[in-house]
């Protein structure tokens, strides 16, 4: 008995010491000065595998391109470090990648995480380690704003795209005012991104007196037949905020299979013209088609040269923008520190000061003074044409 108590006490003491040491190490890592002349690292947690792997790989190609072209112009030597966070693996993968990045002393900032779930899982750790994390695609409202008394992101989290507080009402208002819907089915996939967006859309639709039916599938669902069965036969639209465009395609096909009239309306997560292309469907996204923005011609040409055979998607350009914001924040931090970053937090302090005149998504860029969101950003809606291409709606 005495031996057991002694052993338990020893374990407790060891755990306390280890935790304190870890906390001290993190605090030390957060507060250690970093020279700007050497190579600094930027981490990028993004889904490189899994159903949303297309998003992560597209973003990674643009992040690499941005680091390669922008860092030398700012006099910085930057190494981009990827971290795979498949959406199917949820918070666990995000936390593991975050811990790996935090432990790396040369890590000065983070691009991403890409997904809202990963941000919710890792923002506290990043903030404790003093790491600024700037996401090009995490749109859940509660990451930067308090929703129902809860805020999931920290003051070190920023994003360069508007959140669901813009996407939800934009999509819902389009359904109400342009499509004149009377009945909408709304899906979610039991994870932060889709639940947040579905809630935002449902709120606006209900305020406009549109009848809604809410359905919920697990994130690993592949066959949606039974869900399609529950879509009312007179529903006009099924709002389908998936992060896997292939699932949006499946759902739209199964709607046709069962003779339902409803069209699929996907969020930004389903924006992929190769995987989701059922004509008559809709998709919203936080980026316009930058190939039609004249001043982005050189950037697009450079990216295409570095990525032969690939087409410009909608997730890549905001990633380029996020990298630009981070690199400028690092530069500002280096300037303020006389050639070195006083600590990782020096980057956090500079992020909101970043102003970009020629923003890759059009216009200029700055952060809102009220939150860590971009000022006056908007969402764009596309309709899928008969040839599968995405046409912006007026």
């Amino acid at each position, binding site marked *: 008995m005495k031996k057991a108590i002694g052993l338990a006490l020893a374990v407790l003491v060891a755990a306390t010491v280890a935790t304190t040491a870890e906390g001290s190490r993190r605090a030390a890592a957060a507060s250690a000065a970093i020279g700007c002349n050497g190579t600094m690292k930027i981490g990028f947690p993004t889904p*490189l*595998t*899994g*159903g949303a*792997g*297309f998003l992560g790989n597209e973003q990674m190609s643009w992040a690499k391109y941005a680091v390669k072209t922008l860092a030398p112009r700012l006099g910085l030597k930057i190494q981009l470090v990827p971290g795979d966070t*498949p959406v*199917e693996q949820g918070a666990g993968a995000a936390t593991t990648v975050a811990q790996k990045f935090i432990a790396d002393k040369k890590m000065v900032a983070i691009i991403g995480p890409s997904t809202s779930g990963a941000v919710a899982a890792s923002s506290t750790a990043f903030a404790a380690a003093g790491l600024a994390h700037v996401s090009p695609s995490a749109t859940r409202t509660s990451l930067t704003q308090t929703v129902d008394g809860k805020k999931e992101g920290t003051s070190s989290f920023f994003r360069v795209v508007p959140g669901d507080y813009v996407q939800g009402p934009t999509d819902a208002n389009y359904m109400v005012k342009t499509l004149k819907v009377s009945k909408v089915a709304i899906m979610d996939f*039991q994870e932060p991104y889709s639940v947040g967006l579905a809630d935002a859309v449902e709120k606006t639709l209900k305020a406009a007196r549109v009848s809604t039916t809410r*359905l*919920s*599938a*697990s994130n*690993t669902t*592949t*066959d*949606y*037949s*039974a*869900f399609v*069965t*529950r879509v009312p036969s007179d529903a006009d639209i099924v709002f389908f905020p998936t992060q*896997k465009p*292939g*699932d949006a*395609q*499946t759902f739209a*096909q*199964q709607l*046709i*299979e*069962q*003779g339902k009239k409803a069209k699929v309306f996907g969020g930004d997560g389903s924006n992929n013209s190769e*995987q989701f292309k*059922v004509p008559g469907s809709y998709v919203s996204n936080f980026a316009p088609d930058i190939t039609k923005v004249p001043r982005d011609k050189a950037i697009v040409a450079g990216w295409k040269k570095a990525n032969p055979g690939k087409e410009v998607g909608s997730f890549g350009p905001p990633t380029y923008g996020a990298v630009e914001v981070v690199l400028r924040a690092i530069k500002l931090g280096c300037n303020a520190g006389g050639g070195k970053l006083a600590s990782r937090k020096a980057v956090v302090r500079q992020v909101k000061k970043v102003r970009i005149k020629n923003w890759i998504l059009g216009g200029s860029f700055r952060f809102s003074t009220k939150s860590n969101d971009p000022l006056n950003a908007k969402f764009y809606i596309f309709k899928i044409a008969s040839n599968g291409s995405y046409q912006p709606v007026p």
Partner: protein
Amino acid sequence: MDTFIQLTVDALTLGSVYALIALGYTLVYGVLKLLNFAHGDVFMVGSFIGFGVLQLLGGAADPIVPVWLLILLVTFAAMAGCAALGVVIERFAYRPLRDAPRIAPLISALGVSFFLANSMQLLFGAAPRNYDTFSLSDGALYLRGFDVGNVKVPLLRIVTVLAAFVLMITLWVLVNRTRTGKAMRATSFDREAAAMMGIDIDRVIVFTFVLGSALAGAAGVLFALRVPTAVSIGFIAGLKGFIAAVIGGIGSIPGAMAGGLILGFAEAFTQGYISTRWSDLLVFVILIVFMLFRPQGLFGTPDIKKV
């Protein structure tokens, strides 16, 4: 009533695929007393083989052969490819451990499962592959069919269910009406005695893996004709196939068929009538209930121990 009919169609489609997967588990367990946890990944490989052959034959948008022949060729290719894979798996991962303690081949099976999943990911990446069946004959497989009341039963569902049933019946005939099937049954009953009777045990076991894996390949194609396939589908499909086999009675062929259909109905009707959130939970509750009250499954025989 329309919802009931629609859900029945969904259940039969889903259940048929589960039944084909479950048959593979049950065949191997019946002969070798081994739970082949790599079976779900063989199913996944089958769906990828089918995708590759589909592209070679021109893809869904512009096939070089008639649609019916395209589907047949894709299915046979997947079955053949998976059968070959089954032979390789048996030869290198299970045969050396045949006389080892039972935990050893089980761990080997898990290892094979991880190996297959990760190899496929390395070779083909994580992006889903869509057969784009909708484009075949301008959506005929989705738009043509027959009506039951107000419910449309599209051709694709009919093809899926019929194909699965044809395969199941063929398997039943093979196992119960042929010499090879007799040898398989003898081996599953008593391996040593069967060997003493002159049955080539190695050949029987290889043939069992060929059969089980071929069925998994066919299931992979039938599944992927309706939903995109990806490397990640193997685990869930394998798990559900395993549950179906256990419900029906592991080692029993009619049991595997019944288990698959029961699982399909449980899932579809739960999603349709109760809640879409509860379907996976109910599936596992059914498994637990069977394990507690009827561990031998519906058609299995209780394990009798001599005292």
